[in-house]
C-alpha cells in the first residue's frame, strides 16, 4: 500500500543502530518513555488500519533510539486525527510525537516532492491551495469579489512585501537529500 521501506531488509540490529540520546528533545515534550506498548494508539488509528502506519511501533522505535524511524515513510501517513492522542492511557500524545518526528525528518531532507510543492504554493500565493479561473468565475456568479481579500489579491495588485518576507523567512526546506547516505 505504501512505499517500500529500505530499512526492513536489514534484520539484525546492534547497539550501533540505536541512539537513545537523539530523541531527547521529543522526550522532553511528551511522555514517550512512559509508553506501555498497549497498542491503543494503533487500534485507534484510522490510517493504520489500512496503511502501513503502526503508531505503537513508531513510539517503540523512538524509545529504542532507532534512527531508521526518521526515514520511515509511514510517519507521513498519519492524518492527525488525534484519536490516539485522545485515548492513550499513558498520555503519550502520539500525534504530537509524530509531528515532532516529521520536523526532524524534514530537517534531514526527508520530504516528499508533493509536500515540497505545497510549501511552494504557500510561498508563492500565500495559500496551500491557490485559486483557478473556474473558481474565479464561480465567485463572480455568486456575487462575491473575484479574488478574496487575502494575501494573494494584494500580491496580484503589486503589494508583494508580506509574501516576499514569508517566502524568505518561513518554511525553509533543506535541499533534496542525496539518494543513499548511511549513518
Amino acid at each position, binding site marked *: 500500500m505504501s512505499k517500500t521501506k529500505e530499512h526492513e531488509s536489514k534484520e539484525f540490529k546492534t547497539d550501533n543502530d540505536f541512539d537513545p540520546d537523539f530523541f531527547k528533545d521529543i522526550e522532553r515534550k511528551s511522555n514517550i518513555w512512559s509508553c506501555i506498548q498497549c497498542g491503543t494508539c494503533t487500534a485507534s488509528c*484510522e*490510517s493504520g488500519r489500512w496503511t502501513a502506519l503502526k503508531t505503537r511501533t513508531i513510539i517503540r522505535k523512538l524509545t529504542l533510539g532507532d534512527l531508521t524511524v526518521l526515514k520511515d515513510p509511514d510517519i507521513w501517513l498519519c*492524518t492527525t486525527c488525534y484519536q490516539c*492522542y485522545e485515548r492513550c492511557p499513558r498520555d503519550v500524545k502520539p500525534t504530537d510525537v509524530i509531528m515532532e518526528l516529521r520536523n526532524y525528518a524534514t530537517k534531514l531532507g526527508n520530504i516528499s516532492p508533493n*509536500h515540497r510543492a505545497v510549501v511552494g504554493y504557500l510561498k508563492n500565493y500565500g*495559500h496551500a491551495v491557490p485559486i483557478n479561473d473556474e*473558481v474565479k468565475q464561480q465567485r463572480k456568479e455568486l456575487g462575491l469579489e473575484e479574488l478574496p481579500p487575502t494575501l494573494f489579491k*494584494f500580491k496580484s495588485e503589486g503589494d508583494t512585501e508580506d509574501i516576499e518576507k514569508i517566502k524568505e523567512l*518561513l518554511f525553509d*526546506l533543506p535541499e533534496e537529500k542525496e539518494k543513499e547516505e548511511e549513518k
Partner: protein
Amino acid sequence: MVKEETFAFFLGCIMPNRYPQIEKATKFVMERLGYKILEMEKAACCPAPGVFRSFNKADWMVHAARNIAIAEKMDADILTVCNGCFGTLQEVNKRIKEDETLRLKVNEKLKLLGDYKVNGTITVRHIAEVLGYDIGPWGIEDKIIRKINARVAVHYGCHFLKPTKIREIDSSEKPTIIEEFIEALGVKSIPFKEQLTCCGAGGGVKAYDGNASMTIFSEKMVNIDEVKPDFILDICPFCHLQFETGQDYLNQNQSCNYDYPVIHLSQLTAYCMGMDQEFIGLQYQKMGRDFLFGEKSTEEGV
C-alpha cells in the same frame, strides 16, 4: 474587550479558492443572525495543521500568529469555517495566550514579517460552535423559514473537537452539538458505523500519498453507504473536498457508484434561513448536482 457580535472572517484556502458558495452562505447566515462580518485583509493560509506543522512547528506557529495578529488589530474574534483553520488558529492562539515565553518568542520572529504582534486578546471560533452553542437550536427556530426533512450522515471531521483538552468543545467520542442543532432545521442525523473516524485527507496524507488517503476514505464511504443518507453534512471545506472528489475518484477507479451531495453546515443553515437555491451553489458540485432541497423542504413562513 473585543467587539461583541463582530467577527473577523478568516477564509483560509480551500473555501474561497474552491468552494466560494460556502463563503457566501456563511456570510449570509451570520449577517442574518445579526453579526457583523469583517474581511481580514492580507490574511493567508492558516497554515494547515497537518502539512505545515509537520515541516516546522515554530514557523507554523509564527505564520498562524500573523493571521491572529491581523484579527487583533481589527479587535474582533476570528470566525473560521474550516476544521483545519480552526485547529491551527485555535491551538496557536490558546498557546500564545497561556505561555508568555512562547508569545515573546513568536513575536520576535513575527516582527520580521512586518508590523505584526500578538497579545492574546482574541478568541478563535468555529462556525459550528457559534451556531451550535451561541445561537443554539433554541435560537435558530424563529430565524428559519423552511425546514428540511432529510436524513443525513454527519461528518464532524477531526480538528473541530480534538484534542479535547485543547478545544474544550464537546466529547470526541459521542458529540451531539451538530446533531442537536440540525434537528431544529428538521434534519435528522443517522448514525453510521465508525462515524467519528477521519475522512483520510488530513495530516498531509492527501498530498503525500493519495492512494492511502483514498483507502481510508473508501472505508468511510462504505459505512456511509450502508445507511443511505440523503446527503453528507460536514463542517470543513477540506473534508468537503475529500468527500466531493473522493466519491468521484472511487466511482472512476473502484467502480463504485456514489452520488451523495456534500453540504456544509453553513449552506444548510443558509438555505433554511431563506437563501436562494442558486446561491447555495449545489450546481457547482461534482456530486449530487440534481439534489434539490426543494423536494424535502417545508416552508415555515416567517
